[in-house]
């Protein structure tokens, strides 16, 4: 269908690939092979995949072709997908980017993985992540860093650095990540792709390795808003095996993408301007917001006065929940075990050698915040401030349909730039954390470039208003051309390891 098929196949959106597959212009096996070939060429340098599922992908693609021939294809049949390595897969190791789970083979699929399998999707592999999804640069992966496809001396963001870079570099058509404090939206922004964090409870988390259970949510990365909507459609909905998943009806997200946002009220909050924000980011975001006005939206000033407290509150709540969740890694049931004379020493040595520096830092912080004498001052206090953060948003929703803000205060920073100062690293998520604290959905979409690196606009909506933020994001995307830009990987190959 094109002169250079291997390259062009990996530039297709789901919508384009769906058409080509359904018309039998290409086969699912050809599509999978094009991606696998590209992974072979570029991933030694980019570090996107911790495990490439080559055999699974080819077998799934062959099954997809049989399904296409039989005429019972679904929206994701034959679509090549990367899975963040915190999602359990029965046929591939799942490590959460941690030495403590090296070689772990889950006994079951995550619900989202099962739903994608039922659709006939093709799994390219398990994508790199900060260890247990804790980080903002992917530099906390125990195995290797991910490099930003736009500039390989820059981080891809985190914790879902692998899934974000995979889609940006054409090493997957779409991918799934998880977002606890911005781990989908921030790397989507740094890599110039679309990243959607759904409402807390919209997507089942069975088989997602738990980090902070009152905040974690699974969502898609894609090159277009429509692709993100299609992928969310496939994974959203109640799951009897996750009692925190919602019974709220799942609407038809694609039908919400009308391209028309005239008359919609979009909130802008002064609190989403911080010291240290890069001028190139501020300019691009400002232009994007004005662009929404030119599309017919009404801009409304809103106040979210407790925004500045979201980051410190998060760094009590999330580590506290993590310290409890990660207690399960004890060298008894699975994963690394360092045998010692007593059970207690076995626990301590296994966890001491199995966890990396950031995970240890958060376990320590969380254990401290929960410990006797400090529980009220830190943990309960943080829960009360969380109430105030949520009330800010509840108040805003009485005035506006959505709120727009930068996704991050900066573009992707250099590898190593923030690894010595944990709190500087934490500040990378200053604009994404409030949505997790309030449980609301947010989408990050490309809105320009600064220093040759992508800038991202974040659109937040009320709980279960994914259709609203997708509609705004899609209307913006239709009138801009950012999604058509690709990083030049040919120079990477020249500098690569082969």
């Amino acid at each position, binding site marked *: 269908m094109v002169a250079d098929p291997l390259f062009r196949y990996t530039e297709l959106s789901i919508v384009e690939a769906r058409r080509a597959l359904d018309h039998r212009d290409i086969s699912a096996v050809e599509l999978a092979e094009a991606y696998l070939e590209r992974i072979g060429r570029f991933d030694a340098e980019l570090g996107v995949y911790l495990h490439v599922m080559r055999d699974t992908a080819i077998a799934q693609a062959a099954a997809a072709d049989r399904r296409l021939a039989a005429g019972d294809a679904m929206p994701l049949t034959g679509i090549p997908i990367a899975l963040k390595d915190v999602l359990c897969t029965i046929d591939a190791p799942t490590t959460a980017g941690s030495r403590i789970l090296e070689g*772990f083979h889950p*006994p*079951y699929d995550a619900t989202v993985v099962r739903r994608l399998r039922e659709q006939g999707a093709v799994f390219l592999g398990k994508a790199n992540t900060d260890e247990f999804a804790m980080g903002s640069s992917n530099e906390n992966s125990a195995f290797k860093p991910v490099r930003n496809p736009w500039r390989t001396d820059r981080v891809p963001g985190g914790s879902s650095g692998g899934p974000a870079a995979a889609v940006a570099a054409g090493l997957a058509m779409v991918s799934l990540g998880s977002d606890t404090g911005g781990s989908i939206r921030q790397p989507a922004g740094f890599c110039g792709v679309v990243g959607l964090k759904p409402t*807390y*409870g919209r997507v089942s988390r069975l088989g997602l390795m738990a980090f902070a259970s*009152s905040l974690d949510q699974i969502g898609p990365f894609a090159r277009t808003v429509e692709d993100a909507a299609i992928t969310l459609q496939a994974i959203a909905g109640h799951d*009897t095996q996750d*009692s*925190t998943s*919602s019974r709220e009806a799942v609407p038809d997200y694609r039908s919400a993408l009308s391209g028309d946002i005239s008359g919609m009220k979009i909130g802008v909050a002064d609190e989403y301007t911080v010291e240290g924000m890069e001028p190139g980011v501020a300019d691009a975001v400002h232009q994007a917001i004005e662009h929404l006005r030119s599309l017919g939206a009404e801009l409304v000033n809103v106040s979210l006065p*407790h925004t500045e*407290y979201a980051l*410190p*509150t998060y*760094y*009590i709540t999330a580590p506290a929940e993590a*310290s409890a969740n990660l*207690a399960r890694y004890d*060298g*008894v*049931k*699975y*994963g*690394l*075990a360092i045998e010692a004379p*007593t*059970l*207690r020493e*076995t*626990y*301590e*040595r296994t*966890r*001491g*050698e199995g*966890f990396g520096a950031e995970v*240890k*830092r958060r*376990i*320590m*912080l969380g*254990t*401290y915040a929960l*410990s006797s004498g400090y529980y009220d001052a*830190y943990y*309960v*206090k943080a*829960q*009360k*401030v*969380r*109430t*105030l953060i*949520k009330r800010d948003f509840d108040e805003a929703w009485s005035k506006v349909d959505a709120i727009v803000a930068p996704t991050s205060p900066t573009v992707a920073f250099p590898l190593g730039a923030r690894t010595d100062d*944990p*709190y500087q690293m*934490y500040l990378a998520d200053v604009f994404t954390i409030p949505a997790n*604290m309030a*449980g609301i959905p947010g989408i990050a979409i490309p809105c320009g470039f600064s220093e040759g690196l992508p800038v991202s606009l974040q659109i937040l909506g009320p*709980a279960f208003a994914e259709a609203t933020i997708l509609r705004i994001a899609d209307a913006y995307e239709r009138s801009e051309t950012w999604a058509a830009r690709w990083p030049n990987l040919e120079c990477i190959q020249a500098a690569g390891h082969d």
Partner: protein
Amino acid sequence: MPLTREEVEYVAALARLGLSDAEITRLQGQLSSILEHIEAIDRLDTSAIPPTAQVINMTNVMRSDVVTDSLPREAVLKNAPRQADGFFEVHAILSASLEDA
């Protein structure tokens, strides 16, 4: 308020986290610095504010108390570092001193 070395060691013991001397030194500084930033929330008067532990409008999700299929025992045990007779195997904790547990 900076953490003392003893506090860091105490918290590590609570978390069953074996740390080297160098790690304890590094964490003492880093945790103290992070806590200093976190203490910004003390500026807020929250005496009349109820806590939020979760943000969804659900309470007490119930299901029928019926037996359903579960994973086969081999699947559950296949990743175990040590197993015996179809069970996870752990060090005996009662044969030596109780404090070892």
